[in-house]
């Protein structure tokens, strides 16, 4: 983990870096926690509608179509954006050994970003979703997000160039790629799907590229940067191979936007074949990253570790590998043709989003947030964080197993002839009904996480002026008063 520097500037002390990141990054983390709760709550409401279609059906914005779009936008941009950018800034500062540059820009960017996500949710509620599954962002919200990200990226780039190193740690590559990829992807979607939309059918590959790139490249880079940073750091070892890391990095950037196109998409055959080829080659990304980290952490039980951050990162890595293997399976059109119109794709998105990305982000926040408030501080209410880990892990396992296992039955039924329409619908709905359990677990875990983060902030955010310290003072004051009265009476 140690980096070779050319000594042009002295490396800043961790305390100095943490102090420079404190408010902007904590603001992003807290926003992320709030959006995570919203995403999970909306997700549960959406899933509940499949159990009881009549529930609140007179309200237009509470249909499954509205809720599903809102839940994903809240997760992807609300939680993913805030948590990812927060960790990006902190990790970049630490990796470069320099305090965060221009934190005011970050605050401004974070406010704009959250305004953008709020605008997106309001827009979708009013019926402005884009129609692209996985990128339902309304046009105007996309513009605000791009401006907000530009503010934050400005600070990140200044931090990046504020101190020279002879060697860049792989996490830095991933973080830089994520900063570049986001405007590229959202800009492309804005330009070619909204501002000057390409012709009808061409929107299908463009929309697929944009939504898949956001998932595999943007979220993938952010999550893998955290995994590659925290695992070696906590176990105190050097990363096994920079070459493996570099190979995985470039392959991910190249292939990430191409994978997972449905084999039955109404598109020219070469596009489907290109996607199948990319899905097949994706196994090399999985091997490069997985093998590298496996060798780095050889003999260390990540999931069985006492260290909760390591548990989070271990699960995130495992989920990313499993997700990558499912991506690899799409090299086989027979496999994809069975699952393409079932709940499996959504379930695998949950595996990636919650199992990999959310776990990596929460693990990172669990490690970083206390350090931002004090060098020797531990996470208060920390016992609850293991529950967060357990519940998300259980939810991911339930959704993946139900999603892929039961959706397989649905997919096979779609391939049969003469099957009864009602029986087909039952098979289609069943995996979603089981997945509802997982969604509930996500919701509870997100609430606990928010509560736990609030506990951390309220106790430690402002020294003697933190809400908890003030509350103690008020309580102690109240307790003393009657004693004095009693004393005076005596």
């Amino acid at each position, binding site marked *: 983990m140690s980096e070779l520097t050319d000594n042009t500037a002295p490396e800043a002390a961790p305390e100095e870096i943490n102090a420079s990141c404190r408010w902007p990054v904590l603001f992003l983390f807290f926003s992320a926690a709030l959006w995570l709760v919203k995403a999970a709550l909306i997700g549960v409401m959406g899933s509940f509608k499949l159990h009881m279609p009549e529930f609140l059906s007179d309200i237009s914005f509470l249909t499954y179509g509205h809720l599903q779009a809102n839940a994903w936008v809240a997760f992807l941009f609300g939680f993913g954006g805030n948590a990812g950018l927060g960790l990006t800034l902190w990790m970049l500062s630490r990796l470069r050994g320099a305090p965060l540059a221009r934190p005011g820009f970050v605050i401004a960017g974070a406010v704009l970003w959250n305004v953008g996500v709020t605008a997106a949710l309001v827009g979708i509620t009013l019926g402005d979703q884009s129609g692209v599954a996985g990128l339902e962002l309304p046009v105007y919200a996309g513009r605000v997000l791009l401006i907000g990200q530009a503010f934050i990226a400005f600070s990140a780039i200044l931090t990046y160039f504020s101190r020279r190193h002879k060697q860049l740690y792989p996490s830095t590559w991933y973080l830089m790629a994520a900063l570049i990829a986001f405007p590229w992807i959202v800009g492309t979607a804005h330009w070619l799907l909204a501002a000057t939309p390409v012709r009808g059918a061409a929107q299908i590959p463009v929309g697929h590229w944009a939504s898949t790139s956001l998932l595999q490249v943007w979220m993938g880079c952010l999550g893998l940067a955290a995994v590659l940073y925290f695992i070696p750091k906590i176990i105190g070892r050097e990363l096994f191979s920079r070459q493996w890391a570099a190979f995985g990095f470039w392959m991910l950037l190249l292939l990430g936007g191409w994978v997972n196109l449905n084999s*039955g998409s109404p598109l020219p055959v070469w596009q489907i074949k290109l996607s199948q080829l990319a899905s097949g080659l994706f196994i090399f990304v999985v091997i490069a990253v997985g093998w590298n980290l496996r060798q780095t952490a050889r003999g260390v039980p990540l999931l069985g570790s006492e260290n909760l951050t390591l548990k989070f990162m271990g699960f995130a890595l495992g989920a990313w590998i499993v997700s990558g293997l499912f991506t690899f399976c799409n090299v086989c059109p027979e496999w994809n*043709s069975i699952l393409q119109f079932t709940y499996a794709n959504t379930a695998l998105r949950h595996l990636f989003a919650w199992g990999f990305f959310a776990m990596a982000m929460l693990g990172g926040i669990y490690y970083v947030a206390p350090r931002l408030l004090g060098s020797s501080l531990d996470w208060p209410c920390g016992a609850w964080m293991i529950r967060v880990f357990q519940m998300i892990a259980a939810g991911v396992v339930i959704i993946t197993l139900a999603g892929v296992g039961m959706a397989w039955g649905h997919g096979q039924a779609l391939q049969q002839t003469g099957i009864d329409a009602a029986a087909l619908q039952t098979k289609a709905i069943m995996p979603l009904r089981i997945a509802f359990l997982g969604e509930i677990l996500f919701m509870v875990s997100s609430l606990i996480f928010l509560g736990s983060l609030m506990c951390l902030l309220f106790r430690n955010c402002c020294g003697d002026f933190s809400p908890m310290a003030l509350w103690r003072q008020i309580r102690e004051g109240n307790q003393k008063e009657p004693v004095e009265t009693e004393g005076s009476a005596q």
Partner: protein
Amino acid sequence: MNKAPWIFLGVLFTLSLSWWGMVFGPSVQLAAQSADKGDGTAVLHRVGLAKQGEQVYRENGCYYCHTRTATGGEFGYELRLTQLGDDREITDEVLGDSVKEGDDNHRLIDLAFAFKAVAKSRKAVVDASKAVTEAKDEEKAELETAAATAESELASAYTSFETTFADVASGISDQEGKDNLLFAAYGLSGVELKEKSVMTRLGMGEQIVAANKEIADEAVIKLTDGTAKWNARINPESVVRLKDLVRGLKTRAGAQFKLQPVVINWPDVQNGVAARQSVTRDFMHDAHAMPGVMRLGPDLANAGGKPALADANQFYVHLYQPRLISEKSAMPPYRYLFRKVKLNAGEAAPDNALEHADLEEGYAIIPTEKAEALFEFLKSLRTDALPEAPVVDNPQPANDQ
């Protein structure tokens, strides 16, 4: 990997490769696509309510539970002979074992060639007669002899036709059956008879009625059974035979034919989801292309071609309260797309109010413009034939999903 500018440029370059493959390439290719169907018609834009309906479909996120993507399947080719060439011997040689002597198709071909013989002789008579009229006096005698010969050949052709028809129709007692045979052979012959005298003589009546014209237009002889694939690895013999037949009919016999795809194993067609595979031009004029995420509900690629949308009232009732139409439907009711108006005692409901025995009495449920737009949009979704995606023959009964 240690120089920031190189990382920056490398990321840009790699992302641009990814962008080029899945964004630029497809956009350029699909932007150049023509709306022309090749038969004088074009893939049309959606207009009016149907266009607005696409926005209703999008804003409600219908694409999460409904796909618009009928998938492909396994099919073979049935070679259908639609018009015979002029030479009987070459035709027989090309067809080989495909048509066996004595079977129905063989007799149909006999009769078709009898039609051709009559038409040819009749034309010779007309030409000879015209030549006689226009000839100078010194040539007339010779031409009159030729005309007489032509007349005699025509008489012979008539006789031959009558004999052939009597032979071909020997087992058929009813007139309808005989007409079917007669007009199918007429259609296959490719000749066009307009003279009432000739048509009457051949038993076709003075004028061809619409039903018989349809028989003539649709007459085909199936030369293969629809299991042959163009590049099959399985059953290569059938492919060789199919290719030989196509080549022979086209280059030697001068016949016309059609290669009709026929379902072998194609669930979306066999289950009545669509009549063919969805293709890019189905989304050509969409403001927002929404191929769909899951099939929690039925695929809508051919929604407009299904009986469910033939009755607007049934669709609106389904949208208003799905379980009134389908008891176990998991679709949520879209009541907010309707207006509920209380009726005074004795007041009749408006014409466009929903009709269903289980709807609440004393109220008129009226579709809003959004509901009407959605209906029109769904009606515009069809899988009619396109050159790149012909409608596939499905000999098996459909089970409408």
